[in-house]
């Protein structure tokens, strides 16, 4: 029984690792180049701010590197203990995207808070103007002016 298991394990370890075909590599390289060109174009058209483009450029370069040097990906797959390079690739991409979307949620939350505060400040400013103009007794108006922001 144990002998059978051992031979099965040995056979499994001798099984060749699954590599990317050269066809997928060419396709990936082309997509990576097109992707980076798109990023550049978006920046040029002011549709994307530079500070948000960095992470996408890094992603594009990573894609290109993976396509040109397949050894890189195999090494990472070995490190992860994954025999199929494609599975390693998908896992990495999935994790990166997860991190990226979370990052966007954090940015969105911060901006939502900033927008709310901005709206409140504007509303308060207008209200104070109105209160001052309506000339609530002079005392009230002056004490309001004493405490700006």
């Amino acid at each position, binding site marked *: 029984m144990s002998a059978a298991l051992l031979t099965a394990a040995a056979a499994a370890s001798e099984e060749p690792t699954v590599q990317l075909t050269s066809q997928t590599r060419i396709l990936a390289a082309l997509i990576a180049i097109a992707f980076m060109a798109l990023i550049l174009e978006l920046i040029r058209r002011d549709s994307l701010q530079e500070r948000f483009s960095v992470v996408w450029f890094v992603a594009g370069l990573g894609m290109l590197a993976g396509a040109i040097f397949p050894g890189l990906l195999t090494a990472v797959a070995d490190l992860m203990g994954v025999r199929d390079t494609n599975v390693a690739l998908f896992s990495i991409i999935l994790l990166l995207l997860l991190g990226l979307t979370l990052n966007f949620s954090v940015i969105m939350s911060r901006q*939502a*808070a900033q927008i*709310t505060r901005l*709206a*409140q400040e*504007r*509303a*308060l400013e*207008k*209200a*104070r103007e*109105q*209160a001052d103009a*309506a000339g*609530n007794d002079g005392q*009230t108006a002056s*004490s*309001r002016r*004493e*405490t*700006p*922001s």
Partner: protein
Amino acid sequence: MRTLVFIPAWNEADAVAGVIAGVRDHLPDADVLVVDDGSTDATAARAAEAGATVASLPFNQGLGAALQTGYLYAVRGGYDFCAHLDADGQHPPAEVARLLEEVRADRADLVLGSRYREAGGGDQSAETIVGEDYEATLSRRIGISVFRFFLTLATRQRFTDTTSGMRAANRRVMELFSENYSPDFAEIESLQLAVREGLRVEEVPVRMLERVGGASFLTPVRSAFFIFKGMIVLLVGQFRPRTER
């Protein structure tokens, strides 16, 4: 001693003027501010006609942001006490006056009007309030009891009306809420926050009326979602760091 009464209002053009008039009747010394939360109807105009100062948010931000705007106005205006009530006519201004008395007497930092707490002893002002008594729908009652349970668990203090939008506060509460107020879960999280910060929070039994205009935004599905969200907010709130003051 200056007092601000503010009224968060979102598309309450029919009811807001009446509420303002009521506040002026019962609290003649208080300044009245209407926080118009991006209304698309004539709420802001009606409020200004009725003699209130109006702070108009440029777009609808939700109740939490509207209430925080009121607290901010109170802090910057140098008010000593503030109170807020709903714009739909559910909250009798006479009851708001009673809440304010509690904070003015320094018996609590934050006072809530509760529909469900039994009145203890002679309740003088309640008799003079004219209107149909408030009756909660089933989904609302379920939600309220769930929140009541979890908020009591989180704060170790008994609350009966966790979503009450009729409150009075002193300077300490104003300063806390003007900086830390959840935009999503205004009523409940603010209570948790206040108790965690060591403020004295108290409930006072009040009468509430059926709304004059508009309809409740709660459907059963929304209620379920609302309850679920509230539980997460409360859970997260337990692990939030205390502010240094």
